């Protein structure tokens, strides 16, 4: 069960959502993650945003390109285990110089119960960087909004691909034995 949320947790997600709204993000393709659940709910409740689930993260890379072709901005929400799924599709971003931003919640790096999460968690940053995506890290809830706002500028004004990784320590220890 999710514990009651502290004020800083609520502010953190609200801050990211404020940044997405300020940048006029219209499409939120996502593969769900518990760490993104508040953000997904906010996007679904927004009258202008279109938030939609994907079967695999690479679909969101292609959808973000299509959105930009049509004049909208998309941001992909995903978990670190999906970074590898994106690799070849990121060629589309590089070849056409599409703006791209992924907000990635980390697994496999801090208080991780599931060893199967560890290999991709360790490789997440490297996988993005291999494909030319610049990677930032947020480990402090107080910096989430400004970091996302800066990444939005770099993606949509600077036309570069960016991934922002949210440290697993922000999400907190997961309770496995229920």
């Amino acid at each position, binding site marked *: 069960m999710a514990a009651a949320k502290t004020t800083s947790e609520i502010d953190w997600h609200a801050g990211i959502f404020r940044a997405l709204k300020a940048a006029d993000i*219209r*499409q939120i*393709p996502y593969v769900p993650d518990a760490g993104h659940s508040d953000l997904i709910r906010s996007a679904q409740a927004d009258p202008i945003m*279109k938030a*939609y*689930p*994907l*079967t*695999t993260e*690479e*679909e*969101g*890379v*292609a*959808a*973000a*390109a*299509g*959105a*930009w*072709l*049509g*004049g*909208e901005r*998309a941001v992909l929400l995903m978990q670190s285990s999906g970074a590898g799924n994106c690799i*070849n*599709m990121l*060629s*589309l971003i590089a*070849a*056409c*110089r*599409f*703006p791209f931003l992924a907000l990635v919640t980390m697994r496999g790096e801090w208080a991780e119960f599931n060893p199967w999460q560890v290999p991709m968690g360790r490789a997440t940053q490297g996988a993005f960087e291999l494909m030319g995506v610049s990677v930032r890290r947020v480990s402090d809830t107080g910096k989430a909004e400004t970091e996302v706002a800066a990444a939005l500028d770099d993606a*949509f*004004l600077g*036309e570069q691909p960016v991934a922002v990784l949210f440290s697993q320590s922000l999400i907190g220890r997961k309770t496995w034995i229920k």
Partner: protein
Amino acid sequence: MTTQNQGHNSGHVQGTLDRRAVVRAILHDRKKLLVVTGLGSSSYDAMAAGDDPRTFFLWGAMGGAAMVGMGLALARPDDHVCVITGDGEQLMGLGSLATIGAQKVKNLSVVVLDNSHYGETGMQSSHTGLGVDLVGIAAASGFSWSARLSDMAGVDALRPRLHRADGPGFASIQIAADDPTRVLPPRDGVFLKTRFRETLGLGPI
């Protein structure tokens, strides 16, 4: 041995339609139709029908054509978007049919030129040639309409549907497994992107 479905070539009939004639017919009098083509032969077919800035030709991103179309269709609710791709390309992005069907993207259609083979790589048989039914998958994924077309009358009847907002729609067109002379679209992705956006009144950054 029991008499279970053996999978191999079960019920498959190779198509006979000329892929170039099919794509020419689909794009005839295309009006404001926005088109995304899958890598390989589908891009060559669309180019052979006439270069157009409203066509976004993919040269890679295999499995991504339908999702590029979905992102575009959501961004342009008053326009109609048609994805033209091959069976191999669509098979690589099978999940995207579920994603599109789940969202009921009304102004999007996906047209698969199905020759049941991987034409770019030596004509190996694809899954559709081995009995996999893409039309059934689209229907089961929630597409509003889906059709298997094996004659030009069907293709001609398809054209007006691409301009209606009652999708998502899916058509599998049974084409011959041939390899016509390549007609290559531009492969500069930045150019393709910029000119596509320009026709929609969207400037460079």
